[in-house]
């Protein structure tokens, strides 16, 4: 388990982390969200000693993190970087060896990953001879060569096409299922909502929301009705405790104000002549995010 305990970091006049506390648990995907400049990269770098926190602590399995622990971690920085002129396989083996593994041992892992990501035939090419997408894959393998217990990825989905994105999502889920702790930052809230069990939202260096997505949603009293219908749009705004969030031809999203009331839901259903689909939901991650960050 990775723990941030009241961690703070200041760069001259800028407060990058302001008493951050949250955890990322093994076997789960934790999404790390926040607007640009909120402190995500600083927090991730502090796990690797690339930034030292001024106060508070960052702990792994209850103990402070040192070089020996970091050899069991994998990291994909936001600014991707590899030796451009080094060959793919050789570079990955080198990065694995730096984590204290023997070259034959790490070589096997590298070959497996290259095979899985469809790069086996490019193993002996120079990194700068690869396409942007393939370089991203090599970068991902670089974070995985030591079969890490903790995997931290800074914006792993940025710049990926939809197919690569699906592949990345599947891979991260597999790594977590195998028992690793996975923490990654992203701006793609829909994707995080689908993929992650846990989320952490940071804003201006402060953690504004953290925990299991299900629990967070359950704890929020607010509920929404997502409705599709045929025919003319009814006048839902006339109903008590109903606010129209969004209304388009044939579909609408309604917020139930005040305490969620079954009577209100039934009233909405009755008010709509021909329903195609009807969903009674907690807020989406996107709504939770906007609210947490605006507060």
């Amino acid at each position, binding site marked *: 388990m990775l723990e941030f305990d009241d961690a703070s970091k200041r760069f001259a006049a800028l407060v*990058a982390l302001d008493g951050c506390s949250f955890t990322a648990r093994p076997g789960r995907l934790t999404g790390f969200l926040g607007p640009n400049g909120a402190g995500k990269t600083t927090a991730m770098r502090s796990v690797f000693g*690339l930034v030292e926190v001024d106060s508070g602590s960052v702990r792994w399995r209850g103990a402070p993190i040192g070089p020996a622990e970091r050899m069991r971690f994998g990291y994909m*920085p936001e600014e991707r*970087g590899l030796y451009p*002129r080094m060959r793919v396989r050789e570079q990955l083996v*080198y990065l694995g060896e*730096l984590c204290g593994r023997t070259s034959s041992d790490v070589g096997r892992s590298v070959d497996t990953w290259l095979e899985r990501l469809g790069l086996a035939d490019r193993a002996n090419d120079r990194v700068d001879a690869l396409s942007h997408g393939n370089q991203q894959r090599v970068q991902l393998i*670089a974070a995985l060569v030591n079969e890490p217990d903790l995997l931290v990825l800074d914006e792993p989905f940025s710049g990926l096409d939809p197919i690569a994105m699906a592949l990345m999502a599947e891979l991260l889920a597999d790594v977590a299922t195998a028992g690793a702790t996975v923490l990654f930052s992203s701006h793609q809230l829909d994707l995080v909502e689908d993929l992650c069990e846990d989320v952490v939202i940071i804003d201006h260096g402060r953690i504004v929301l953290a925990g299991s997505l299900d629990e967070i949603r359950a704890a929020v009293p607010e509920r929404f009705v997502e409705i599709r219908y045929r025919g003319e749009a009814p006048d839902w705004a006339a109903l008590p405790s109903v606010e129209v969030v969004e209304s388009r031809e044939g579909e609408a999203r309604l917020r139930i104000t005040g305490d969620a009331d079954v009577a209100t839901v039934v009233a909405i259903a009755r008010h709509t002549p021909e329903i195609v689909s009807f969903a009674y939901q907690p807020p989406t991650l996107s709504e939770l995010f906007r609210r947490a960050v605006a507060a």
Partner: protein
Amino acid sequence: MTGLLQGWLVARREMLERIRSKGLWAGTAIMLLVVVASIVVPSVIASDTVTRDVGFAGTVPSELPAAIADQGRAVDVTVRVHRYEEVAAGEEAVRDEDVDVLVVDARRLLWRGEADERLRAVLSGAIQLVAVHERAVAAGIDPDELLALVAPVPIENEQLGIAAGRSPDDEAAAYVMSLLLLVALATYGQLVLTGVAQEKSSRVVEVLLARMPARNLLAGKVAGIGLLGFAQFALTALAALIATIVVDSVDTPAVSGAVLAWVVVWFVLGYVMYAMAYGAFGSLASRTEDASSVAAPATTVLIVGYWASLVAVGGDPESGWSRLVSLFPATAPYAMPGRIALGVSTWWEPLVAVVLMLAVIAGLVVLAGRVYAGAILHGGATLKLREAWRGTANSTR
């Protein structure tokens, strides 16, 4: 243990990557070529006898051609003789460069432009000799007896050099060693500089530093480039030695094993000191192309230090100034081996210099390490030394 292993892995990568690059081999080939050529070419030129064409017009004493050939042989000049019936035809031959000089009536030498001093000496010596011979015969003196009387006494030339008991060969050795150390420190320091700047600009450094402390990375890089540089220099020195033995050049500086051992010590110490400084400067640069200008302070100290030691030790290796520059860490790598080669340093001076140097290196490891760690992850414009020192550098997100 882990630190040593990581340092070794970094050093090994540095060496392997460079050994595979064409640049290293081209550089080594050029260096070998220059060194071997600078030893072989002068000896080839020096040992080769020169051939000169001499024209004669007017009266030619019968012994003169033979006397010229004799005199020429003594100074490695082969003389070919041409005769001209008319002075004008001879002059024409001089102008057309068919002959180098025209001897008229054994009294006048006609050149196309400036006189060739060596040939002039050969010709006038031969003419004097023949003239003395003729006068002796005319005066009834046995010419051979006379020649024995006027035979020159051999006079020895000896070069004292600038230090008692040391030959100019030792001075040449001291000079060459300082120069080699300058070249070595500048070359390999530059490699550390660009290596660090490249890792920063390609961003791979963040991946690396996530798995090892900055000191392991910097130490491994400095060690790898240093080992390779040392091998390259040893190879060049070996080539120079072989070339010297083959051409049997007379003015090869006689360098003792002890002096060579000291050169190695100063190479290592000087390299580590300057490499640390270059590593710190390299981390400040935002682009590889800017690295050299950012590192200008280190390069200035390197070159000014060389000139200071050259002026001091070349002037008077036993002066207070020379002592000072040979002890001062920035100049010691050039000045101390020079003074050791000249045999003017006391036994304790090199030891004091080494201790001072080690102290400076220890300080630099801490200072350069802090600057490096503060600057290497900074994304924006080239940093000032002070900003990196304060660690305000990585103020991104």
